[in-house]
């Protein structure tokens, strides 16, 4: 690669808003974190979730596979992005935490409504009143999204 090319790339890289990089690092880590907690706590420790539910639709299997792969990639990628923000001294904790809450909340809502209910991937827990679990699951997700949005809008005002 020629020097001029590298110079051009350097300029675009530096001028690219560090605001969006802070946000994206948070969103990616948040998504990965929720997926990880889901796998570690609900699948491995509690055994509430099943590896495979016979009523799973094909689309549920595909969606699950895609999110499984993407969540690993996003949590690792997000952490390298965070390392990159820290080394260039442009990490904005408030905005970043907002991103984590937003990303985590969005994924939990998708998992709770689309994957569990519409695609019948598996249920939160195999009990009679699973509705209570579903409600709690999705309310927490919505709360995370709202909190995340508040953090992000505040970080824009205070420029922190």
């Amino acid at each position, binding site marked *: 690669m020629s020097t001029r090319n590298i110079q051009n790339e350097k300029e675009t890289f530096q001028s690219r808003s560090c605001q969006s990089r802070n946000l994206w690092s948070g969103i990616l880590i948040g998504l990965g974190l929720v997926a990880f907690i889901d796998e570690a706590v609900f699948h491995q420790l509690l055994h509430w979730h099943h590896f495979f539910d*016979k009523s799973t639709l094909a689309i549920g299997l595909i969606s699950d*596979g895609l999110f499984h792969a993407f969540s690993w990639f996003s949590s690792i990628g997000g952490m390298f992005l965070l390392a990159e923000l820290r*080394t260039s001294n442009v990490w904005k904790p408030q905005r970043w935490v907002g991103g984590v809450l937003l990303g985590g909340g969005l994924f939990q809502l998708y998992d709770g409504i689309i994957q569990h209910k519409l695609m019948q991937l598996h249920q939160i827990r195999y009990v009679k009143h699973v509705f209570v679990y579903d409600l709690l699951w999705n309310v927490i997700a919505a709360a995370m999204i709202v909190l995340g949005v508040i953090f992000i809008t505040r970080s824009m005002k205070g420029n922190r």
Partner: protein
Amino acid sequence: MSMEHIQHVHVNWTSFVLLMLFFVAFTAYTAAVARSNLHYKPWPMSRYICWIIGMLTAVSAVFGPLALLAHTNFSAHMVCHLLLGMISPLFVALSTPISLLLRTLKVNSARRFVRFLKCRPLRFVSHPLTASVLNVGGLWALYTTNIYRDMHQYPILYLVIHVHIWLAGLFFTVSIIYLDPPSHRHSFIFRAGVFVLAFSAHAILSKYIYVHSPAGVTQEQAEIGGMVMYYGGDVVEIALICVFCWQWFRRSKVLRY
């Protein structure tokens, strides 16, 4: 009984051919390191160790007790498959054999070799998309058709499939992470996208195997095998993602300063 006996004889010669192939590769690398050390600064020990691990993991999947067990036990087969198709290729890629070869060859032959690397067929199979299809698509074909059952009856098929699993795994790995200089570069974002698709196709297949046991495999064995494939695949793929992101991180450092 006699059927089992025939199978063992086949296992012996195909395993032996594969063992020999990896042994020749191991010796060639060692000779190249010795030759390169005569003219240049010493070849890094870490890379040599990676090559040794790469060869040992591949050999353990095709020769010896684990490989024998894999003929009757599906989870053992899955462990072999992880060793041969994922772990070995990763270590081989980390040992940068192409760079070593270019160091060892004379200038003229090195040029010819580079031209060979840039030829259309090779560029085609080492494209991230083609390599992914060859790798994961090959697995779909193996486990969802009768090929898996036939593989244990026809030694030639067994040989071809095992060479294919290793080579496809290797082409896939080097199409995603660039440790040797690649003949054609693709952007980080494109490779990341292809990787996520291939990774999910692998995860979907392992859950598919969990319910639809391949021909000749019991339901119980398929369930364990599917989980070995799912979680074992995760471990290797996480390692691959880390190398990939590390390369991106180093690149972004260059761009920053």
